[in-house]
């Protein structure tokens, strides 16, 4: 190719190249002229106009942050509100006009006991800002500090108190796991949030309802266009577009009931969830231990945060939403129902319980919790006394495929879809699941222990409450929901339509059998939760459970009382009431609580009794004043 390259070619090529360079140069000159024309237009033609904007009267656009929406409980009790926060600001220019900055700071330091670091920070800030700008000095003063400063204020020209807004949770401990909290916007959030909307906002929802409903709670930012003089001081407001407050949320939560539940858990780690059966309203959503969400609003100190993180009781862990526990015997009513629906058992049919269950030709014995057995046992007795052998046998007959299919309908192993982020789905095993995750085939032994809610099965307290509510609702699926309605400037803009039209096809006759057995658990002879039935003029249906896994790691330095406690089983209880016209379903899980009947059931009873007493005076609780 290059062999044919001649001098003539070189000259021709040179000529072409030169032509092209000339063309490009002309193009460049023309484009540059275009730039110059535009510059002339801006700087000569537009000079007057832009100079007015810039030199004499600058236009400053500043954001007006919206007021964050308030969160109430179902009865209008404030759960999250905006409170004034007092900050101290310093105008170095004014301070200097009347005295000495260093001396003023020294006096302030003495008056308010300010650490030296703050003073150093102040000087750093000052270097970065214009001489006439105000510099934030202290934030979130206590009332006492405000008062102390107010008295001495005439002696501090150029030092002023300014009021901003901060979030406050009046029932912090009770609502930390539901309402959540807001915190300072971090760098990562800054990138994903709309810049113009959050220009003047300091807080953003971090967890809970505060996070799920951030878009509604935040509101719409407004802005002002101000004329400012050459130094940037505001002279006049040209235009003001008001911000629009965020929407107020009314939760389905009943804070009084929440308090009852929270107090009932006193001394234990655990969770209580209560759902209103007819609506899916979540009345109680408690996880204990809890923490003070107010600590997070203005930045939690490292010490406080470490204390929360390192605590063996894991107070930041939302047990109601994310705690996954084996359901234990609380699964038995659902298993029994499955048996009836598939026609593999009949209500009056009995089997003999010798205290253990054995597969033919296999040595291994599956033990009943009652070593000497329950003897001849039908479905009602099996649920009332929580006979394991009956359900081992039932599970064997049903097989894992039918159990999985039936339990999935009640939402086991699935998220409930509650309006909170981070929900765990729990687990109800299947052949496919075991093959994928354990790389093993399904053994009959797996089915047997699945029948009593052990083995791989995991549920969250929320799931249990919802499954119980659905059962009490005769198969009409209850979808738990936390926000009841949204209001904007005092009129309701949206009422959540409660979904839940879907129904599990079940025979009412079979459900009646199960409910009768669950009533027997509380009110019948030998029922495992008998002690809660006293003094009420209505019936509670329930089922106790104990689960053999402990999740909370305990340190060796704990006292002996606690050490013993960690060996205990988890105590569970599911229940609903009144049986005649079910209103409320409650699920309780107490970590290392021991027996469901003695520990968990009374907690559920407290919630049910309080709720029904408030709901309708005809429901009496004679023990109330004890």
């Amino acid at each position: 190719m290059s062999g044919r390259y001649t001098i003539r070619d070189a000259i021709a090529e040179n000529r072409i190249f030169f032509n092209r360079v000339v063309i490009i140069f002309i193009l460049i000159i023309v484009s540059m002229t275009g730039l110059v024309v535009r510059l002339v237009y801006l700087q000569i033609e537009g000079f007057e106009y832009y100079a007015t904007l810039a030199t004499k009267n600058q236009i400053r656009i500043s954001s007006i942050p919206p007021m964050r929406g308030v969160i109430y409980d179902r009865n209008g009790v404030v759960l999250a509100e905006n409170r004034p926060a007092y900050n101290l600001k310093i105008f170095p220019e004014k301070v200097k006009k009347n005295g000495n900055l260093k001396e003023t700071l020294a006096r302030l330091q003495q008056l308010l006991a300010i650490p030296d670091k703050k003073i150093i920070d102040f000087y750093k800030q000052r270097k970065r800002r214009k001489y006439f700008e105000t510099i934030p000095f202290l934030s979130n003063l206590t009332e006492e500090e405000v008062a102390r400063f107010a008295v001495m204020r005439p002696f501090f020209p150029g030092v002023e108190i300014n009021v901003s807004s901060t979030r406050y949770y009046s029932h912090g401990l009770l609502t930390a796991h539901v309402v959540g909290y807001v915190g300072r916007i971090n760098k990562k959030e800054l990138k994903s949030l709309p810049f113009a909307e959050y220009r003047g906002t300091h807080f953003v929802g971090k967890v809970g309802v505060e996070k799920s409903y951030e878009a509604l709670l935040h509101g719409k930012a407004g802005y002002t266009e101000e004329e400012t003089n050459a130094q940037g001081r505001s002279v006049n407001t040209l235009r003001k577009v008001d911000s629009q407050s965020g929407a107020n949320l009314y939760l389905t939560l009943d804070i009084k009931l929440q308090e009852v539940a929270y107090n009932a858990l006193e001394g234990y780690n655990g969770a209580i969830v209560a759902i209103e059966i007819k609506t899916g309203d979540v009345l109680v959503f408690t996880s204990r231990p809890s923490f003070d969400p107010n600590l997070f609003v203005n930045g939690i100190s490292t010490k406080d945060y470490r204390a929360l993180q390192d605590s063996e009781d894991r107070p930041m862990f939302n047990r109601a939403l994310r705690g996954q526990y084996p359901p234990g015997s609380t699964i038995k009513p659902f298993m029994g129902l499955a048996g009836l629906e598939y026609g593999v058992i009949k209500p009056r049919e009995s089997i003999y319980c010798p205290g253990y269950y054995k597969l033919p030709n296999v040595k291994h014995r599956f033990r009943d919790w009652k070593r000497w057995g329950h003897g001849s046992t039908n479905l009602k007795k099996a649920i009332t006394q929580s006979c394991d052998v009956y359900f081992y046998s039932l599970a064997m007959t049903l097989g894992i495929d039918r159990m999985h299919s039936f339990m999935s309908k009640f939402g086991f192993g699935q998220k409930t879809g509650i309006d909170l982020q981070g929900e765990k789905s729990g687990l109800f095993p299947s052949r496919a699941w075991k093959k994928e995750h354990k790389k093993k085939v399904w053994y009959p032994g797996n089915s047997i222990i699945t029948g009593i809610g052990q083995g791989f099965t995991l549920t969250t307290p929320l799931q249990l409450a919802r499954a119980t509510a659905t059962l009490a609702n005769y198969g009409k699926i209850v979808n738990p929901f936390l926000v009841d309605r949204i209001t904007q400037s005092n009129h309701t803009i949206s009422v959540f339509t409660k979904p839940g039209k879907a129904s599990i096809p079940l025979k009412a006759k079979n459900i009646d059998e199960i409910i009768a057995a669950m009533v027997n658990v509380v009110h019948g002879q030998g029922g495992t939760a008998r002690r809660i039935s006293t003094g009420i003029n209505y019936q509670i249906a329930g089922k106790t459970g104990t689960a053999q896994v402990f999740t909370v790691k305990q340190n060796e330095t704990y006292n002996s009382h606690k050490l013993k406690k960690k060996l205990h089983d988890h105590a569970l209880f599911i229940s609903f009431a009144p049986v005649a016209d079910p209103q409320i379903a409650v699920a309780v899980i107490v970590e290392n609580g021991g027996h469901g009947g003695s520990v968990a059931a009374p907690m559920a009873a407290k919630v049910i009794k309080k709720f029904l007493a408030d709901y309708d005076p005809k429901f009496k609780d004679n023990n109330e004043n004890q």
Partner: protein
Amino acid sequence: MKTNDSSQFESASLIGNILRKLHVDIPLFLVLTLSCLLSFIILYSASGKNDDVLIRQIVRIGIAFGLMIGLAHINPEQFKRYSTFLYGVGILLLIAVLLVGEIGKGAQRWLDLGFFRFQPSEMIKITTPMMLAWYLSKHHFELKWKQLLIAMGLILTPTLLIAKQPDLGTSLLVASSGVAVLFFAGISWRLIVIIATLIASFIPVLWFYLMHDYQRGRVLTLFNPEADPMGRGYHIIQSKIAIGSGGIYGKGWMGSTQAQLNYLPESSTDFIFAVFAEEFGLAGCLGLLILYLLIIGRCLYIAVQAQNTYCRLLAGSLTFTFFVYVFVNIGMVIGILPVVGVPLPLISYGGTSMVTLLGSFGLLMSIHTHKKFLAH
């Protein structure tokens, strides 16, 4: 003063000798030095008298000048030999960035090599014209469809890879550097018309499929910045106020209220021209444009004087890219082009672009100072 004249002249010629030995093109070196000094002056004001910014910029320019002189030392034959290799490495690094690149400012541009962070798209700005110059210098008189298609492929590969990051500004620069080589190589006007039509028909594809929402927003903002004064329109409104209020003679050094009062975002980087225009007015802007024109003129002279096709094409393309740089940045700051992240060459605060720019001037100097037969 007069008595010192001769000694000054002597020392100047001594420096000249040293620079010549270093393969440095003196006229180009002088205008570049002048613009960097200008950069220090305006940067000090734009950053609000920030010493740190100034010192960092001085260090960066020092490094970039070192690289420039280093590259000027290398014979252009070496560049030619390694063109394909460097281009290939650049493309691989771009792919690597897309796969493992670290997210910086919302876009994947950086490759973290552990000890330092590296932006391959900067390197590709030089290696793409090198590659095309190499390819077209082999086929310069037989530019048929096949060669043209291969050349287009060589341009589009890095362009699209960078657009995907997404970094519209750089991909535009890379594309124009490649197209410039084609143009200088003497493709017929008929082909130029066809390519222009192709590019024009590519615009809808770009708009609907390749551009991100924020990029579309920037283009729309150009036509109506007042529609969103708090958001997208903010930059351009503030920038126009800064420039317009500068008038003919400007407000004087350190007198820019727009930047000093923090109205103008990115006043040290992409929008530094607005600060310059505010402080030095139309007169200063004309001066700066003339300075740029001097650089471009000298570089085009170098291109015309170059001795072989490869050097000519490379020199021509690098010069044209430099102009595109200037035009796109100033065009965006004065509100006639959409906001794409392109700094003002030689003036804006920022390391990587400065290094590549001075690197390309190093190539130009190398081309000019390694001629086998001196022209005179």
